[in-house]
């Protein structure tokens, strides 16, 4: 099947979905292709989930500009797209005079980058806000505009907004080639056929170099840098932190931090390992030890028993050291590559930057029937008793609790599957609804979620996947007898 598009966005992470949503404001036919069964399957699903204030990156860099602009934009988008964000502010904690000197440098740089409200607090003032932090912390840089968020939910929101405005999201759709004619992109070849297009936006995360090379631009490479994390249950928050606490940064990373999540959990991590394998999401014993040791410096009482899961994410670090953004040497190919931290914060700014280029070149006008926001997401556990009763009266499936740890109803799971760009996998349901994210990690609800996915998508139970392309979960019994 051959499709026609004005723009093909490659990669369904936070960057790709933000771009798709921005482009959907205009009269453009947009298609996003994602090789995994769901969006936000790469870097977006496993990172520190922080909306940075913007004092880390060198002044004048894409990273600095996009970060500060992106942070501002999220303050606006938050309500429009109903994003899960908490503006907690962040600390960078220093333990000695050298560290304090670094804080002063960060503050000066932040101010040059345009970050508002930066202050250096003494240790006691810091501990008044975060009482469980180490007594050894002498001072910290306070950044009030930083926040925490649920990155998957933001990518989901962008994708949903784009889809209700006519954009198409093709998942399980791997790019196999890009046709270029006379120095201009012409089509994208995918596992689901050819898509003729005027523009290609490369937001392919750790594979952005490979995609770029398909079109003939080999001006940069991407080096995955793995970060491992440990997530704690909600009981951990009272002995840990309510916001974001970094150590003084090193050259390669912002260090191992202790951070709350918007769902009331706490995580620690990441470490930083240069790796070759772009799929290496394994967690290691050594990594776990490193993270615990690092985090204990900031927050001495880390309840190991409250750990519910550990995971790893890949940062897509580019060979240029900065984001690779904008036009390439191939006409029609726009780059959104090397999007490592602060990529999450920068996504809406990157989206505007790239959309402007396309709009300017094509002269596309604003869509007259543009719909703001996205369909409402009922969240049963957050309703008061009357609203709960009303919801169940309307649809009995909201009276059937499937995930008992997080109080998620069948109604919410069905909604997650049937929404625009809805869930198709068990982890997709989990990320949209939190079913299976609690203490039992899907022990009780897993089988029932599988049953609901199978029913709603009209596929057999053995066709239901956990997350990845080949992540089939259960098999027919007969086969085993042979």
């Amino acid at each position, binding site marked *: 099947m051959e499709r026609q598009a004005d723009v093909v966005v490659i990669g369904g992470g936070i960057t790709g979905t933000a771009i798709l949503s921005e482009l959907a404001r205009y009269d453009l036919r947009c298609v996003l292709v994602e090789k995994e069964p769901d969006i936000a399957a790469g870097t977006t699903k496993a990172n520190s989930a922080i909306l940075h204030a913007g004092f880390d990156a060198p002044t004048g860099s894409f990273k600095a500009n996009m970060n500060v602009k992106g942070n501002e934009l999220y303050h606006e988008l938050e309500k429009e797209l109903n994003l899960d964000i908490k503006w907690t502010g962040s600390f960078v904690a220093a333990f000695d005079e050298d560290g304090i000197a670094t804080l002063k440098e960060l503050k000066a740089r932040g101010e040059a980058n345009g970050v508002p409200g930066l202050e250096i607090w003494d240790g006691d003032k810091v501990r008044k806000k975060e009482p469980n932090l180490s007594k050894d912390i002498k001072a910290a840089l306070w950044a009030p505009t930083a926040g925490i968020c649920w990155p998957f939910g933001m990518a989901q929101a962008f994708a949903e907004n784009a889809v209700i405005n006519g954009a198409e999201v093709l998942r399980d759709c791997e790019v196999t080639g890009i046709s270029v004619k006379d120095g201009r992109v012409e089509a994208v070849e995918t596992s689901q056929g050819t898509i003729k297009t005027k523009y290609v936006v490369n937001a392919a995360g750790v594979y952005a170099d490979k995609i770029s090379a398909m079109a003939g631009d080999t001006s940069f490479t991407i080096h995955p840098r793995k970060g491992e994390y*440990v*997530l704690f249950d909600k009981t951990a928050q009272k002995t840990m932190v309510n916001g974001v606490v970094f150590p003084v940064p090193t050259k390669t990373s912002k260090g191992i931090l202790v951070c709350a999540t918007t769902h009331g959990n706490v995580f620690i991590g990441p470490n930083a390992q240069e790796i070759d394998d772009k*799929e290496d*999401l*394994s*967690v*290691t*014993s050594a*990594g*776990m030890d490193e993270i615990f040791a690092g985090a204990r410096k900031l927050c001495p009482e880390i309840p190991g*028993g409250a*750990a*519910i*899961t*550990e*995971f790893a994410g890949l940062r897509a670090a580019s060979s240029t050291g900065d984001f690779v953004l904008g036009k390439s040497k191939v006409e029609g190919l726009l780059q959104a590559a090397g999007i490592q931290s602060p990529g999450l914060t920068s996504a809406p700014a990157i989206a505007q930057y790239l959309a402007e280029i396309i709009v300017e070149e094509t002269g596309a006008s604003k869509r007259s029937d543009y719909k703001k926001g996205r369909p409402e997401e009922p969240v049963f556990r957050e309703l008061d*008793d009357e609203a*709960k*009763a009303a919801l*169940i*009266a309307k649809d*009995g*499936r*909201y*009276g*059937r*609790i499937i995930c*008992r*740890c997080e*109080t998620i109803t*069948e109604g919410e799971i069905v909604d997650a599957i049937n929404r625009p760009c809805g869930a198709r996998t068990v982890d997709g349901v989990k990320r949209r609804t939190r079913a299976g994210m609690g*203490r*039992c*990690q*899907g*022990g*009780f609800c*897993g*089988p029932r979620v599988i*049953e609901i996915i199978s029913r709603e998508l009209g596929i057999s*139970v*053995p066709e239901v*996947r*956990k*997350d*990845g*392309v*080949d*992540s*089939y*979960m*259960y*098999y*027919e*019994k007969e*086969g*085993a*007898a*042979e």
Partner: protein
Amino acid sequence: MSEMYDIIIVGGGPAGLSAAHSAVNNGAKKILVLERDREAGGILQQCVHNGFGLHHFKEELTGPGYAQRCYDLIKDCPEVEVLVDTMVLEVRDNKEVIAVNPQRGLMKLQAKTVILTMGCRERTRGAIRIPGYRPAGVYTAGAAQRMVNMEGYIPGRKIVILGSGDIGLIMARRMSLEGCKVQAVLEICPFSNGLTRNIVQCLNDYDIPLYLSHTITGIKGKDRVEGITVSKVDDKMRPIPGTEFDIECDTVLLSVGLIPENEISRELGVELHPRTNGPVVDQHRETSLEGVFAAGNVVHVHDLVDFVSDEAEIAGKYAALTALGKNVKADRDLQVSPGTGVNTCVPQHLRLSSESEAVRLFMRAARPMRKVKLSVTSGEQEVMKKILPVVKPSEMISVEIPAEKVSALSADITVSIEEA
């Protein structure tokens, strides 16, 4: 004003059903059992193997058979109503119970007493921190058991089981009967955590190797499990470098322990015990909140459902008496503490009066021991002793203090186990 129930029972597994039956026998007139699953019986419905009921029903039953027995005892009782597909969201300390189901919507129910019988859940991979990828093919043994025994699918064809708890052992046999190959059972402890009979009939019968003092130190496969790396562990359960070997498998089942499911209890404000992870209870299974009782795996994880029923009958009886205003006020409150060689002991205290009845204490040993003396002391005085040929942490021990000795008790109790 909503209807007033004598007793609302949270959970319709064997504990909830046994408590309801006992409550009827003790005069309660209006009992409501709330069960979240599509039918009553709890986790027993997926435990299709036998070995249940020898103590309680004096007959060997399968899990579903035991559940049916429990259910049959109450199904025709006009005093008892069972609501399935119903989840309790909250129990308030005035014994108001908030629950939902698809037909009745949000229910606000009022009871004189509440019995907590929510059972337990399985420990997960996160709680034990297995390194490696996070592919499909890693399941808790109980989740896999439900798929195999109730839904009709298998989790894979080449299986490794981590943990030698009973569910893991039972699943080893179950998967073998389904035609799957069980490559190994790994246990991080130097001893098995399951019943001996299950080692014999679930592993030895099927030539499945059990590796003691071994654990998984790596999982291979990005989308689906392709194999694991196993290491021997030292006496502090740390992997010993250089002892690694690989096992090919497409499935890892985790049977690494059970945890009482006490979120409702915690929010209600019931005092929980740090070692059992369940409510602190007295001999009537009354918790720290008056009129709130608890029984079964929610109090402490049992290895035999028979003892769950026994315990639930106690809770059902005293919840009924409390609801009817017939409970005798206690005049003294004695602590029961685990001493040497004992890890946990339930009940944790005795609220005694002149009319107190015999009391049974349930213990778990701290480690496997042979030829032991179990002794119950009250202050300086030895109240009871029992010689046991063998004790294991995996097998709960009980001792009954006769009524006449109970009424004479006046000082706190300690239970200890020492090798003779």
